[in-house]
């Protein structure tokens, strides 16, 4: 692909042209030249009209539902949604049916690659069927290309399984991802435990269930480091979907002590608190649940001071039959891919430059993927966006519509993506 990107503003701290409006010439999936008034002879031209360009964004937590629940989402529709959200790379959770716990299922997902700007990575399960008891063949899965290990929606409950996973992954320098939740304390839980859950008659999920498990996970990480001499330079444990102020504080402390840990927050956790559920809106039923205003502030502070490394969509597509129901029968989750950037623009308190870091260099570092930069000779993997643009989220490219943001006017718009020799250009919203 030979392409001239005319008048784009480069947002990339690692680039010598950061903040500048330039033309970019792309040849054979590489950045051939960056400059002003570059010749368009023999090239397709994209008029950027001063929109922003950054290295392509990466979402570390996406449920594709394929194989098994293709009526909710499949590997094609999830790519469409990813593109709309500005993501050129996504990491899929293993919780399909069957679970990605063997090379067979891993290869199914990886072989279903399409001519698309979206590169799909797969996190493989730690235990068979992600059931928390018998290990998967992790070395084999790692060799076959699994980018990380996690039981995804099923947090590891058994302390010894967790400990042995960390130990087993250590020689490969592979990453364990876990969402801390003590399932005994959240049994039958529907929302955050607090006055609101009490007034709604819904069983609560106490913040403690997350914080206790997080404390355990950090202690086990500390314990395995005592057994190995080699210092860890990269995170060995990535904490998914941090949601409480105390969790942020625990991770801040762990990082101060030098523990190789990283963490993420879901973009929607920066928006809602539990009182939003007073209407029993099942599109606000998520796990971890929406907490309190003070927790949202702590999450924002954690993003700003770097305690929270990156932001994910936690894209959980569901069919209408799973959401248009009585609250306690409805499934957990929100489709998030298409709204991450707008939510961060509106609710994170981060600068555009920092938002880009939370979506590019930080998740790449955690996942041990090569760094990207907008500089000559580098891979052409871009996201185009306009942080000031308002748009109304009227239609989802996902098969699912379980988003509380549908119909709302948002600020921060994705204009297109370019990766793997393919471009999708949405331009400006009408």
């Amino acid at each position, binding site marked *: 692909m030979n392409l001239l990107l005319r008048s784009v503003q480069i947002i990339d701290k690692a680039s010598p042209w950061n903040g500048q409006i330039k033309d970019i010439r792309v040849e054979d999936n590489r950045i051939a030249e960056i400059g002003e008034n570059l010749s368009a002879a023999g090239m397709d031209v994209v008029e950027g009209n001063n929109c922003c360009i950054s290295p392509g964004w990466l979402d570390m937590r996406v449920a594709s539902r394929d194989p098994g629940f293709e009526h909710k989402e499949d590997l094609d529709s999830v790519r469409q949604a990813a593109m709309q959200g500005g993501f050129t790379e996504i990491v899929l959770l293993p919780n399909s049916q069957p679970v990605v716990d063997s090379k067979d299922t891993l290869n199914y997902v990886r072989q279903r690659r399409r001519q698309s700007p979206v590169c799909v990575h797969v996190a493989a399960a730690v235990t068979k069927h992600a059931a928390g008891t018998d290990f998967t063949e992790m070395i084999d899965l790692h060799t076959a290309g699994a980018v990380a290990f996690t039981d995804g929606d099923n947090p590891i409950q058994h302390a010894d399984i967790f400990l042995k996973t960390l130990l087993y992954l250590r020689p490969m320098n592979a990453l364990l991802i876990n969402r801390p939740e003590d399932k005994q304390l959240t049994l039958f839980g529907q929302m955050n435990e607090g006055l609101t859950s009490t007034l709604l*008659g819904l069983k609560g999920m106490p913040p403690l269930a997350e914080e206790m498990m997080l404390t355990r996970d950090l202690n086990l990480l500390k314990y395995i480091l005592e057994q190995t001499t080699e210092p860890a330079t990269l995170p060995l444990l990535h904490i998914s979907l941090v949601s409480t102020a105390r969790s942020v504080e625990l991770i801040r402390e762990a990082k101060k002590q030098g523990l190789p840990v990283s963490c993420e927050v879901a973009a929607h956790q920066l928006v809602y608190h539990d009182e939003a559920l007073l209407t029993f809106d099942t599109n606000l039923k998520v796990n971890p649940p929406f907490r309190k205003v003070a927790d949202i502030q702590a999450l924002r502070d954690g993003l700003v001071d770097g305690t929270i490394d990156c932001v994910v969509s936690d894209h959980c597509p569901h069919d209408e039959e799973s959401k248009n129901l009585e609250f306690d029968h409805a499934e957990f989750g929100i489709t998030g891919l298409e709204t991450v950037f707008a939510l961060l623009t509106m609710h994170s308190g981060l600068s555009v430059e920092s938002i880009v870091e939370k979506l590019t260099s930080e998740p790449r570092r955690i996942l041990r993927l090569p760094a990207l930069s907008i500089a000559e000779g580098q891979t052409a993997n871009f996201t185009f966006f306009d942080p000031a643009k308002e748009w109304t989220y009227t239609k989802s490219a996902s098969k699912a519509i379980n988003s509380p943001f549908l119909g709302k006017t948002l600020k921060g718009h994705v204009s297109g993506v370019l990766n793997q020799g393919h471009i999708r250009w949405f331009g400006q919203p009408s």
Partner: protein
Amino acid sequence: MTKLSVRHLLGIKNLTENDIHTILDTASQFKDVINRPIKKVPSLRDITIANVFFENSTRTRLSFELAEKRLSADVVNFSASGSSVKKGETLLDTVNNILAMKVDMIVMRHSSPGAPHYLSGKIPANVVNAGDGTHEHPTQALLDAFSMREKLGDLAGKKIAIIGDILHSRVALSNIFCLQKLGAEVMVCGPTTLIPKYLPEIGVRVSHQVKEALEWCDVANVLRIQLERQQIKYFPSLREYSLYFGITKAMLDNLNREIVLMHPGPINRGVELSSDAADSSHSIILNQVENGVAVRMAVLYLLAQQ
């Protein structure tokens, strides 16, 4: 007669103090009606009401049905044990099928908190919540308030203790909302595992000693132990519960003043209430049942005016 501020009776939470007084005042008039030789009025002659019960109920369903019949409404009953989901038909489909037969009002009991709220946003008919899981049971709270008011007059400043399984009780929650709106003070009392941690945040007192609660209150509203709604263990045994949280006539007699004893039924005799307490002069339990019909008539009548 004034109108209500709501189209549906989903919970006490959504009512104004004025709404509650309107319902209770209307209920007084209907109580007169049902004590006449001709117990029936033609008020809802053109209205068809479906009692849709997804959970077992004897007294509430009977009470609603009688209230509807006393108002000359046409009545159909639909009962299904277990949730609609388990049957394979969604709640919305079930109710839309009933509404397609030209039904005007839905009285629903359901095991899911918020089910009537969900339904009210999707269908044109008026919805009356006859109990939604562990959330609300508004007509029970209204008939309790009516019965207390009948006995004690204005409830402002009165002290009401709700004793028993507060955690799983929709009656407790609706009572708390209703009594607070009417200016009464509320205490909840029971084993620590059956008291929600967050109630003091809305000004509810908490006690774990039945004796203390009885000495404090003007009215003791005793709740049933909801064993069927406890998905996990909250206390060791009914024997221990009745020994330490059960109320006997001797305990009532030992108080230095008369208090009112209430229970929404059905009573587990010998568990939360001894028989001699339930049948004592303190008890207005059967008055509650009678008033239930009048209060439900008032609710249905007022909603039909909307």
